[in-house]
């Protein structure tokens, strides 16, 4: 979530009024859908008991992908998949430089103890959002395992964090910006408005 730039995340605030200027589209909506389906199959291959899977989308960019992955897992396995959303704003370590107020709610209505949690986000960048998510998840119990699914891995990690399921690896420059949603993936730049 925090690794991408999307309109609803970037509220106009006195300090940060940034907008995304797309340079080119890298994946189409169909490409995204195909990637999600592949990731779904990989998840099922690795986790034999669909009943123990909880899919948790990170607010806000990961939520759409998480919904779709849960749906795909249901289609593959026939089991209802537990779904949650998590806002990690309060767990970030860069609050003072990134003081946007939480834009969305957390909804995890079941204990995560002994479950396999698939954390879903749109873009994996520095890894700080995922680190915050790992801290946050521990407040809902002790999962048996946590796995990470992202649509785009763009490199530049600042933590020893790697994704388990990736839609697409995209080498990027640090100052570039990526937008990923169900309609496609774009590369471009952040611009002050």
């Amino acid at each position, binding site marked *: 979530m925090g690794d991408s730039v999307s309109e609803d995340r970037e509220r106009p*605030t*006195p*300090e940060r009024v940034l907008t995304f200027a797309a340079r080119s589209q890298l994946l189409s909506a169909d490409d995204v859908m195909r990637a999600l389906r592949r990731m779904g199959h990989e998840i099922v291959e690795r986790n034999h008991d669909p009943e123990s899977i909880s899919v948790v989308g990170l607010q806000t960019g990961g939520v759409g992908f998480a919904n779709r992955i849960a749906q795909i897992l249901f289609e593959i396995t026939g089991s209802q998949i537990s779904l949650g959303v998590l*806002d990690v*704003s*309060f*767990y970030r370590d860069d*609050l*003072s430089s990134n*003081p946007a*107020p*939480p834009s*969305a*709610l*957390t*909804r995890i209505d079941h*204990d995560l103890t002994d479950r396999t949690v698939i954390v879903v986000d749109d873009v994996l960048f520095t890894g700080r959002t995922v680190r915050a998510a790992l*801290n*946050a998840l521990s*407040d*809902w119990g002790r999962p048996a395992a946590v796995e990470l699914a992202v649509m785009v891995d763009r490199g530049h990690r600042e933590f020893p964090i790697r994704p388990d399921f990736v839609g697409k690896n995209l080498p990027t420059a640090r100052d570039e910006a990526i937008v990923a949603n169900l309609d496609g993936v774009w590369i471009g730049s952040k611009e002050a408005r």
Partner: protein
Amino acid sequence: MIDSIRGCSLLTLNDMSCAAITEVLDTAESFVEVNRRAIKKVPALKGRVVASLFFEESTRTRLSFEAAAKRLSADVLSLAVASSSMKKGESLRDTIATIEALGIDAVVMRHKSSGAAAQVEGFVPNVRVINAGDGQHQHPTQGLLDAFTVRQVLAERLGVIGSETGSSLFEGLNVLIVGDIRHSRVARSDVAAYVALGASVRVAAPGTLLPVDIDAWPVSVVEDFDEAIEWADVVGLLRLQHERGTGSFVPSLGEFTFTHGLTWERARRLKSGALIMHPGPMNRGVEVDSRVADLDAAIINRQVENGVPIRMAVLYLCIVGAAKGEVQ
């Protein structure tokens, strides 16, 4: 106009824009969810230090602020001022300087003198000051939690979350504030919040309990309380200090009930769906009939519940912002 309290002190709701207030309410919505978790704690203010200085005792407000700070993982220094050096003749300025020397990020303070929080802000410009009630001036978090509670209840009726409605539920909302307006910091903060959010506000009080400058307030004064009851979507009652009902301002508490109490008969004239609020502690049988206070329309317990998330939101926004001075 202040458009955000981020990184700022919170001394008053006067001059707050709709956006600034909405931001607090939306943030509080996230903390309502945190407070429903089994582990009601997030690390947002880890390593930060919040001092609570209650020069006038208010156990409810102090506990609410301290719980809020602790749920944000802040360290809390609680100075029981009544029993401390203030009694030994130490000045407010020196007390604050001592606390500041301990390395604090914010101070939550309650004082019997109007303006005391503003003065303290002048003494310690690098510390955020959160006013937890100063004299008859302001009680900003009460105003915020009242507005938050109204929005929460109205949003629930629509089956949505308050933060999805922004300030839209206040447009055309009729708010009637009743009682000792003159001496009430809650009334001053409530009026500022409701008016900024777009509600239409009327006040009703005996002549001696109306503020002398009521003409300058963005409200209208009710001539007929019983008629206004039928107009209101929200009735905000205020506490009447007993000593004001002994002939000094009002001939008797009974006469106050007669003219401005929310009696059972008056409550029957309320619109269906109207809300009854009170900042507590209530004088049952004076401001409000005991049976009325127990109606579903009386959302007083919701106000109390929302104290913690609103104060979490305020602490979070005030402390986790750009450093003071950086925000224009």
